[in-house]
């Protein structure tokens, strides 16, 4: 069981890190998409005014029905991010497009969005795979408890 837990903890750590980057990418993509609509006259509010609308998730989606998305204990803390700066996701997130938003044109914003979406799709796919591993290990831990009861207390 301890070995199962350790493998699960490592899968959770990677899942946590991927989820964090994924949410950063989502925020960035949705902000730039709003800015494009604003420049095209489809939105009247400024980015700052519309922030809650831009960053909130669409209520429910089909998430409520999908079996795997049930309440679980999550901690809202910054995950340990190894090797920051070396990876592709850090490059796309590191650029500070919001420092020079009014100096760049629409095509550059469209290009930035396309680059972010490409990285986001890869990260979401990796996340799905790690979640499948984490869920299998969670099931194995659950089975151990069901068959053997609680051998040693993990609560310390």
């Amino acid at each position, binding site marked *: 069981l301890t070995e199962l837990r350790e493998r699960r903890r490592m899968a959770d750590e990677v899942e946590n890190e991927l989820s964090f980057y994924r949410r950063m990418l989502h925020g960035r993509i949705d902000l730039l998409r709003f800015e494009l609509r604003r420049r095209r006259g489809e939105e009247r509010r400024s980015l*700052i005014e519309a922030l809650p609308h831009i960053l909130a998730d669409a209520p429910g989606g089909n998430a409520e029905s999908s079996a795997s998305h*049930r309440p679980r204990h999550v*901690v809202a803390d910054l*995950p*340990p991010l190894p090797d920051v700066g070396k990876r592709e996701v850090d490059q796309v997130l*590191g650029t*500070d497009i919001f420092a*020079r938003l009014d100096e760049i044109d629409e095509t550059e914003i469209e290009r930035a969005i396309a680059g972010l979406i490409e990285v986001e799709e890869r990260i979401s796919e990796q996340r799905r795979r790690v979640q499948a591993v984490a869920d299998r290990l969670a099931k194995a831990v659950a089975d151990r408890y069901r068959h053997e009861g609680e051998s040693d207390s993990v609560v310390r």
Partner: protein
Amino acid sequence: APDEVAGLWERFKATGDERAREGLILHYSPLVKFVAGRVGVGLPRNVDQADLVSYGIFGLIDAIDKFEPERGFKFETYAINRIKGAILDELRALDWVPRSVRARAREIERSMAELEHRLQRTPTDEELADHMGIPLEDLQDALAEISTLGLVALDEMLSPEGGAAMVDLVPDPRGTNPEAAFQAEETRRILADAINRLPDRERLVLTLYYYEGLTLAEIGEVLGVTESRVCQIHAKSVMSLRNRIGE
């Protein structure tokens, strides 16, 4: 390039430049999406995620205004704590838990405290219902009603003056925040002792949820009960824990 962000910090901290401040808010705003998404887990449907985000943005702006870049700390860690604090503060201030449910929860908690003191252990559902003079089904309906309000909400409901939310007290198996971990060490030990003294079923639900990170559905499969029953047991366990830690 990341040095442009440093340039924003320099300009904002040196001259208070509003445009630099807005650039920083936009650059770090996805952190609010991350925190609001996670604090929102288990909250009831009537809490709008866009509201959580707007409370979180005030926390982010506060963090940007107060941050001192020269001290060499990581802004993201500081910002996430301020964002989380701002959302939880606002959740505690809101009176979104129906009064009747809040009153019922108080009544159950009071009865539990009396029985725990008398029996020196957590009462069974039957003992609790008997003590309150209500049928067992009514008690379980009341627990179900309280638990459907969501898992974080339970703490908020039982301590409106702002006691530490369960989510802040439980050890984070990922161990990301060493300073907070050091401070919380004592609280954790008290919490662990209290959990280990709960009856088997209650202890198992808390262990599997907070320490083994299982979902309510997975815990239901281990115990052989429905997910909503797990939620009720969780609600009762948190109440019992609060009584014991409060002593």
